[in-house]
């Protein structure tokens, strides 16, 4: 009895394995060239499967025909499976597309706010004269979601005291970066809650 059960068990395991292999190969493949824009692939899929744009209508039609013949029923089921599986992949594709768009929008927002902050600091920073050496100093800023500067510290001072002093003087002139108010809270927390300002003197006579 045990032997029978073991052999049955083995048989089902093999069957499960084979079905898994089969199901893997039965998924349609999307050959998306990484160098290509995902939009192109999405467009191609739309061209190939116009039906995808009206899935409820297609489903209704299939259901009516299913009542007539079992042969047709089988065919329809197969089509449906195919459509659904394709639809699933396209949903993933759309999701990717949305993520990409969202990411590019986030990037755009970060760049926009960064550029404004850069411009505002530049307009008040009175850079010391005659610096023929290359200098770099880093300031860590801690912002409230309202844009208020909660704290700042010169975490990496340069070797030149006047250069450092000029930075601290400029930072003391700033109280708010209200530009961050236009950002989504999640984006603010991720990028602007704490950020660095890197002050540089090119080492050229300026």
């Amino acid at each position, binding site marked *: 009895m045990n032997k029978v059960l073991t052999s049955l068990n083995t048989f089902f395991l093999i069957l499960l394995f084979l079905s898994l292999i089969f199901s893997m190969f039965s998924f349609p493949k999307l050959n998306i060239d990484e160098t290509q824009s995902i939009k192109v692939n999405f467009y191609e899929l739309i061209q190939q499967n116009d039906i995808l744009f009206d899935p409820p209508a297609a489903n209704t039609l299939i259901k009516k025909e299913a009542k007539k013949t079992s042969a047709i029923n089988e065919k329809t089921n197969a089509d449906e499976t195919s459509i659904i599986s394709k639809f699933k992949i396209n949903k993933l594709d759309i999701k990717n597309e949305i993520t990409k768009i969202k990411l590019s929008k986030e990037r755009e927002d970060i760049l926009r706010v960064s550029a404004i902050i850069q411009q505002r600091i530049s*307009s008040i920073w009175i850079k010391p004269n*005659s610096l023929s050496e290359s200098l770099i100093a880093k300031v860590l800023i801690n912002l409230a979601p309202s844009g208020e500067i909660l704290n700042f510290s010169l975490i990496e001072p340069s070797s030149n005291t006047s250069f450092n002093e000029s930075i601290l003087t400029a930072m003391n002139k700033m109280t708010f970066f209200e530009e961050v108010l236009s950002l989504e809270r999640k984006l603010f927390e991720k990028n602007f809650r*704490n950020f*660095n300002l890197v002050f*540089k003197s090119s080492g050229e006579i300026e």
Partner: protein
Amino acid sequence: MIRFLSILFILVSNTIFSILEIEILKGSDNLSKVAFVPFGNESGIEENYGSQISKNIEKNMLLFGEFENLAVNEMLSYPSSENDFYYRDWKVLGVDYSVIGKVNSVNALGNLNISYSLFNINRRIKILEGEIVGSEDNIEDISKIISNRIYEQITGLRGIFDTKLAYVINSDADTYQMCISDIDGKNEQILFTSKAPIMSPDWSPDRKKIAYVSFENGLAEIFIQDLQSGERDSIQALGMTNSAPVWSPDGKSLALVVSFSGNPDIFLYSIRNKRLVRLTNHYGIDTEPSWSPDSKKIIFTSDRSGSPQLYEISTKSKRKKRLTRDGNYNARGRYFPDGKSIFFVHGNNGNFQIAIKKLSSRYIETLTSTSLDESPTISPNGNIIIYATKDGSNGYLGGITLDGKARFSLPVKNGSVREPAWSPLLN
């Protein structure tokens, strides 16, 4: 699995450790705004010394256009001690720094005791505090000392308000005067007057002597004049003409141009043993030498390539190097006090402008926008260049800060002013 874990680690570490960095390269074109509050006088002091001192300090600090001031009638308060000082009174007026002070006492000998303070309004801290004692006859000198300290505190550079300028005035076609004055044009002294041209003045490092070229005997001849006694001595160098003297940083020798049979070359002249050592030997014209701050090199102008260009020569190995290649006229080169850059006259399409070049860079940058600039000289703190230029036929001295924010002209003299030479700092 290992691959997966390493990717995960990279992702997590990126999330944990990456922080947005915004680079700030450009500074503001605005100037720092300074409030020079009239100094107070302790009760019982009759003369208003305080006001004279603060006015002098303000005049000094504004001399080269490096700062903006707040008019006295716009001030909300007139504190003379820290107890009366409120940052908000200055913050609302957009002031960056405030200078306050007081004349505390005058003793029987006429010596004033003055205290002063400098505040950084944006940082809300006192950044300088001092006391000075000096005679009431030397109020201008006292003001210069205080101005130097304030300037140094704000800019990080040595103050230059007690430096001097040597220059040549050509008052009419036949009169040349060798003059020196304070950097603000005051206390002018005429050292020597001649009917023949005078040129190329240069200060000894101790500020006690001036070397210059005079044609009084028909040929270019180098004289050294003692400023205390007024005595002048001609350098008895060999050759037909001697010109363009420049003191070495240690004051022991001069770099100069000696011309044997019409071919000028660069020589070193030892002042103590009057020995002449040849540095260049070329059929082209070598002229306008100047020492590097470490005395190891000399920059000079030569037309050996077909047009005037700047070259550098090692005083020991005598190895030469061409420094300029842009345009067909680059002359009168001088090193910056840090020795890393040079400034010179750059000619382009008939315009002659003051240019600068970092020795480690290929590129030159023109500083001035006038068209007939010559004889540039740099402040000993390396921040300002004064040069001779022309307005029609009249020569005057123009100046520019190296960041280009401030351009100015020095007070007009009675005649054309040429050949400025900025004195070294008093140690």
